[in-house]
């Protein structure tokens, strides 16, 4: 088992004819992921290395039974592409695109929640990798192997760093999920922790957060009440200068200052061990799974 993407995954790539879209679609396909189609309006009928391109998601889903969308289109068109995928019946959407206007994300996210059963990962995320099964996104899969550690992270490259430290100690992953760092994330730590909790293959979850907002504090509450599996955390930004990105009103909303220390304390208070470096995180994972 694994979460979000697996051998049943059939991917349609929006923006497949763009430079990054082509590169990563083919990368995912080489990994063994079923990349069944692409969408680029106006380029229907073409193909990218054998992958058929359609003008609309509705056509792509109808012709190729895609059940997962990977979105690579430029920021100003990305929200539109995401809701188009949902409209065509796709229920797992992975949005890699960085820089989508926050108000577009707000409306899109409210609409998708109204549909009820759509799961959006990202935007501005590295995607989801279930080693040995499927890679939907830009995670460099060669660094990871199959195993029982789930990883969920707000930061892409930090996800690779932590996954790689685990791999060097001989641990593989059930799934690696980058939820992205945008103002309106499609999925939160809580959403992904709940999936890992229900996944029989996952024995431990590594959660990697960073300063700002209150997602880590909310995850701590959820872990205390609803997660039985061990969780090991990492928080980036202990030495980041305060006040560079956060307005006053934001600090009120979060109910804390959004500092790395406050987040680490909230997690430790519910029994989550927090590593101070990615290396220490992997050491704690080894200890916990060996115990």
């Amino acid at each position: 088992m694994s979460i979000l993407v697996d051998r049943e995954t059939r991917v349609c790539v929006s923006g497949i004819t763009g430079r990054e879209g082509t590169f990563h679609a083919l990368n995912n396909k080489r990994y063994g992921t079923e990349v069944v189609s692409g969408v680029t309006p106006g380029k229907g009928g073409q193909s990218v290395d054998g992958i058929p391109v359609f003008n609309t998601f509705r056509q792509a889903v109808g012709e190729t039974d895609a059940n997962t969308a990977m979105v690579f289109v430029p920021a100003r068109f990305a929200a539109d592409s995401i809701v188009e995928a949902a409209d065509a019946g796709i229920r797992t959407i992975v949005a890699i695109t960085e820089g989508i206007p926050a108000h577009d994300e707000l409306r899109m996210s409210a609409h998708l929640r109204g549909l009820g059963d759509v799961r959006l990962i990202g935007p501005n995320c590295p995607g989801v990798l279930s080693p040995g099964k499927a890679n939907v996104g830009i995670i460099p899969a060669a660094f990871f192997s199959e195993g029982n550690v789930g990883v969920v992270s707000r930061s892409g490259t930090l996800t690779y760093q932590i996954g790689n430290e685990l791999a060097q100690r001989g641990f593989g992953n059930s799934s690696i999920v980058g939820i992205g760092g945008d103002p309106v994330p499609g999925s939160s730590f809580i959403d992904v922790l709940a999936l890992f909790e229900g996944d029989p293959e996952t024995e431990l979850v590594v959660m990697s957060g960073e300063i700002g907002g209150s997602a880590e504090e909310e995850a701590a509450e959820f872990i205390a009440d609803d997660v039985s599996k061990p969780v090991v955390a990492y928080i980036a930004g202990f030495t980041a200068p305060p006040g560079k990105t956060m307005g006053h009103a934001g600090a009120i909303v979060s109910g804390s200052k959004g500092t790395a220390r406050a987040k680490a304390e909230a997690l430790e208070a519910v029994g989550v061990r927090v590593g101070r470096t990615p290396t220490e995180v992997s050491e704690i994972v080894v200890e916990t799974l060996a115990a």
Partner: protein
Amino acid sequence: MDLLEYQGKQLFARHGVPVPAGRPAASVDEAVTAADSVGYPCVVKAQVQIGGRGKLGGIKLAATRDEARAHAAAILGMDIRGLRVHEVWIEEASEIEAEYYASIVFDRSARAPLILFSTKGGVDIEQVAEEDPDAIASLHVDPLLGYQQFHGRRLAFEAGIDADLVRPLTALLGKLYDAFVGEDAMLIEVNPLIVTPERELRALDAKVTLDGNALFRHPDNAALRDPSAEDPQEQMAKERGLTYVKLDGDIGILGNGAGLVMSTLDVVAQAGGRPANFLDAGGGSKADAIVAAVEVILSDEKVRAVLFNIFGGITRCDEVAKGLIEAFERVQPQVPFVVRLDGTNDEEGRRLLSDAQLPGLEVEATMLGAAERVVELAAATPALDTR
């Protein structure tokens, strides 16, 4: 992107939010002309993006033209907590009967805009939130429905304002919400929102943060950047499309992805070093971006050593290596570099670096090893500005 007070007020005015009449001025003569047209008494306000300007002498009341001239002369060019004042805003003086607070922010966890309103304005709202949280009324707005009249009534009645102000407040909050959505704002804060003796509401201050990702929809707003708010290196980085934050230390840092860069700063600090900057070269960094990044990092003369920490996903390590080689040709760095490359095309990247034999550049296999090595090198190297 943060706006100056007067830019925020002009934005409010476009959406029908009542603000005092005023004019910006960049010189003493312009300020006097502005004061004459606004009328006396007027207020001369320093335009810098920093709270507490008033206490630091950045806001003065002028009863006459001579006073306006004297205040403008004193305030223009003044240094307020490290920010130089390039512009003043000359505004009609307002009589204040009461001070309220209103704001609209992005609530990440609720994934909806949150409106906050309080009758305790004019003071630090964080202090109110701590001491008297019940004094702040708040509610979320469904982004698909938008602002409704009942939102305003609820906030007004829950905050306990006088009955005659409920309708005007409801209307004003609607206009603020229009501005929030219409201008793609991330934050709109009015503190204080005043009640005049004529029982009218007016925004006496304006704090507006716009979404940099949506500026393509607002070319006028995109032109409002305030260069005085930025450190010269930060400005240089922004012009080159890099995310750079200057810090106090002497180890230049470059990484890809905000999380990894933050983590790199933490690990360098734990190894006993002091980072000179945060620099995120971003996803898909091309050689040009790397050259620009090296230039930005080395423009800080306190730097004694530089750490590159790359874990490539969308970023390709061979592109980073090519950028480094080109940067060494163009800039000829005088300080040691430690480079760690992992991820997409990492072997090719390391091969390019080893073939190029760049002077003073070492490759380390792990993030922790690279951090420890750069700290050692920095301790053994004099800073550029002390040579």
